[in-house]
């Protein structure tokens, strides 16, 4: 069917009819495909495209709770916020407002730590699970279990375990003769705790994805390498890792995006009230929009900045992958 569509396309092209006729012919050829993608396009346009445009616009204004239009009872109060150009961006990027660079630093460190641990632990476990052994199915189910626990449930559970006075971790430490640790009080420990929770939550996805990748590497490659006298490490380095490249590329990109925007773990573990150093950009932006005097413009500015950072990362990352592919 694919072939049929492309061939009609190429036969009509040389004729070069008028624009309207070409549009009609293109419609005749492609209306089926367009009809099938239409629902998605509509949903994305209304629920993502329009809000994005609106968000960009808000980030160029000084909108906050006090000056947006709203309806109280029967009275409608019109909006009075003004267009201020790139003022918000300038304030954030020059460091006048908030602590953008400090938060950015922590967000990057958080993302790097989480994705690194997700990937290495996931790879390690997947390599172990990919062997023939007893209880393999059981191990697999147990190891995927954290994925089935909703993130907010897991976060609350960990918060209880980290509790300073009544938490089980401190109880264990005391049994071992060590003092209690204020896991969620101190900002460094808080960060480590958040990373631990997120790693616990995220490893199963990586493990399953990599396991799938491992199983798609033909066994003959390993056998051939072994016949040629390659050591286990050499086989891992030159057969397994290259074979995993397509999967790794995708999951690392997705993992980075998800971790960078990970809201629940930070928001629910660290609590919503305290403005703390352990907040990442996303939770800070959320707090701007919904706590205290609602600063819609500031929140939108942070949102757009986060999006731009991720876009730049994705473009560079994909280019890097493409270059590696060429170099091979």
């Amino acid at each position: 069917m694919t072939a049929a569509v492309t061939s009609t396309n190429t036969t009509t092209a040389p004729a070069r009819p008028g624009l309207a006729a070409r549009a009609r012919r293109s419609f005749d050829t492609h209306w089926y495909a367009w009809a099938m993608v239409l629902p998605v396009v509509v949903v994305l346009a209304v629920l993502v495209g329009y809000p994005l445009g609106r968000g960009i616009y808000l980030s160029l204004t000084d909108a906050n709770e006090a000056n947006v239009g709203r309806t109280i009872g029967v009275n409608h109060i019109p909006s009075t916020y003004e267009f201020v150009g790139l003022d918000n961006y300038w304030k954030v990027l020059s460091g006048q407002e908030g602590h953008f660079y400090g938060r950015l630093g922590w967000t990057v460190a958080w993302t790097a730590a989480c994705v690194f641990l997700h990937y290495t632990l996931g790879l390690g476990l997947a390599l172990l699970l990919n062997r023939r052994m007893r209880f393999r199915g059981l191990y697999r189910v147990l190891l995927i279990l954290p994925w089935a626990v909703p993130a907010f449930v897991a976060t609350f559970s960990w918060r209880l375990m980290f509790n300073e006075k009544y938490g089980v971790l401190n109880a264990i430490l005391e049994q071992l003769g060590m003092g209690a640790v204020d896991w969620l009080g101190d900002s460094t420990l808080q960060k480590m705790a958040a990373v631990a929770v997120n790693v616990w939550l995220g490893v199963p996805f990586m493990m399953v994805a990599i396991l799938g990748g491992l199983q798609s590497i033909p066994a003959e490659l390993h056998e051939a390498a072994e016949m040629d006298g390659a050591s286990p490490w050499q086989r891992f380095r030159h057969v397994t890792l290259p074979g995993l490249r397509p999967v790794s590329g995708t999951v690392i990109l997705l993992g980075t995006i998800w971790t960078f925007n990970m809201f629940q773990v930070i928001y629910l573990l660290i609590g919503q009230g305290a403005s703390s150093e352990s907040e990442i950009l996303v939770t800070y932006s959320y707090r701007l929009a919904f706590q205290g005097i609602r600063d819609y413009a500031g929140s939108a500015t942070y949102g757009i900045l986060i999006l731009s950072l991720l876009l730049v990362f994705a473009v560079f990352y994909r280019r890097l992958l493409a270059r590696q592919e060429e170099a091979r």
Partner: protein
Amino acid sequence: MTRKVRAGVRARGERSRGASVALHATLVVASLVSLFPVLFIVFVSLRGRDGWQEPTEFSGFGFGNYTHILNETKFLTWFGNSVIVALGATVVGVLIAATAGYAVSRMRFPGRRPLMWTFLVVQMFPMAVLIVPLYNILGQMGLLDSYGGLILTYCSISVPFCAWMLKGYFDSIPAEIDEAGRVDGLTPFGTFWRLILPLARPGLAVTGFYSFITAWGEVAFASQFMSSEEHYTLAVGLQTFVGQQKAEWGLMTAAAVLITVPAGLAFFFAQRHLVAGLTAGGTKG
């Protein structure tokens, strides 16, 4: 899995005893780490209202927490709300993602590449940039504090990922099947509906599982959009147990166990397909 074991020197896939012990020990430790928080919550939930204050005692077991949340809080209402929203988002999301994924996989049409890019880029959207405008839009459409609004919002989160994954999965189904269907007089949609969808069940399981879990565990949108207590989802309701003033961890853990059960069920139905589905989708990104 049916490798031939050669005689003589240790064959591939065979291990020395030491290696076997190390392998199993590592996996047991890893399984314990992944299991412990879950077991611990079940344990605390069975220990009565204040049992959580002595996490290392083994006494005072009972179902007090469960009967309390079932009878004296709105837990069941919230549970129902979560089920409606999560199932709605899963069905709507997977259905429209599947048609789009199929079109992108099998047909060449103008706008195909931009659409693929959109699927990827949309996943980068921090909810922080969308939440305020979405709040306004849903307010204008009268969909705030309603199931429909939240279902649509969750679709916008899960659809791009699902479409992307399903496209990869459809790519792995041979195109000859489509051609056979067309020869037999099926429309493209008929081919998709009758032939390809049944074949793509593992892929659908993965994406459905993903949509369900995402919707079931979402906090940020639900906290802002569902303002009346009658319409809270579980993620919002649970926060009322452990607030600034009170800490009913006993109740919280009992609720946590009840919340995890449906997610766990969805998971066990899907888990056999998870590996197969993710491979197909992941490699062909």
